[in-house]
């Protein structure tokens, strides 16, 4: 009897142990269920992938066609102006040169800009020439040139303001008659002053505190030289007064 009870006890223990092991493993049915689920998932994805691959391929072809059409349109646009590829490169280089110069001038102080105002005029010439090029009719160039002109106009406005404030005036130290032949007429005639003797009243009017008689200027005087421009009404009346008193 004891032996039978022992066998029963051992068998029960074995049953419990097997049940424990079973809990950690996947049963055949569960495995089959999972296999079915994942297979269905795979099949679904396969269908999706086939459709997606087709769509992507189709879109890639469409993209290539659009790129080709765009290139063709760009070529036709350039051809309308009669320009060659080399002309386009040269034109773009000019626009870049203008941009670079404008960037350089924009970074200057007002005083430095004043001293380099000839470069502002030079840039204006470049822009004017570029506007005459047929390529400038193309909107991207047209807009770029318009922007450059705007930037240049801002620099010109700065120069004008600087000149009007009197800070932009050059000075000239009067030399001797014997050595330099300095008189208002001759000073105005100098290349680096006005290169125009008839503008002498500008210097006269700007230095009335020093010059009482336009015929008499003293060596060593530092005369203010206003920027080159047509005579103002005040300068013209000063000139008339001079001739009247002559």
């Amino acid at each position: 009897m004891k032996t039978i009870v022992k066998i029963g006890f051992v068998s029960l223990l074995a049953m419990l142990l097997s049940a424990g092991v079973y809990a950690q493993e996947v049963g055949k049915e569960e495995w089959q269920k999972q296999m079915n689920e994942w297979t269905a998932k795979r099949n679904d994805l396969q269908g999706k992938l086939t459709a997606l691959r087709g769509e992507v391929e189709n879109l890639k072809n469409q993209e290539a066609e659009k790129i080709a059409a765009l290139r063709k349109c760009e070529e036709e646009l350039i051809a309308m102006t009669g320009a060659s590829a080399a002309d386009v490169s040269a034109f773009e280089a000019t626009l870049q040169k203008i941009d670079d110069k404008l960037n350089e001038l924009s970074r200057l102080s007002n005083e430095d800009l004043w001293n380099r105002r000839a470069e502002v005029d030079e840039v204006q010439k470049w822009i004017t020439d570029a506007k005459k090029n047929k390529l400038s009719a193309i909107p991207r160039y047209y807009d770029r040139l318009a922007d450059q002109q705007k930037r240049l106009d801002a620099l010109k406005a700065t120069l004008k303001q600087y000149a009007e404030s009197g800070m932009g005036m050059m000075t000239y130290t009067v030399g001797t008659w014997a050595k330099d032949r300095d008189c208002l007429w001759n000073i105005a005639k100098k290349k680096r002053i006005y290169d125009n003797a008839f503008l002498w009243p500008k210097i006269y009017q700007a230095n009335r505190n020093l010059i009482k008689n336009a015929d008499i200027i003293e060596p060593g005087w530092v005369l203010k030289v206003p920027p080159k421009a047509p005579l103002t009404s005040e300068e013209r009346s000063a000139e008339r007064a001079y001739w009247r008193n002559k």
Partner: protein
Amino acid sequence: MKKSMTLMIGAVCMTGLLLAGCSSNATEEELRQLEELKAEVASMEKEVQNLESEKARLQTSIADKDAQLKKCEDDKKVVEQRLKGM
């Protein structure tokens, strides 16, 4: 009484052993098969994701090219007008 008791215990033990022995678990090979299937699905999901991104990129690019193309055609008209005035 003793005999029937012995028989009952014996029957219970046999049933227990049978149940424990006959419970069918997936084999290692089957489990490996399941894991491979899962990995394949994961890889396909990743590919779907990549293709979806590529599709979106291409759609954006095409829309962008369309807009550029339209602008280019408009530009041609503008250039024609401006060249007449030059």
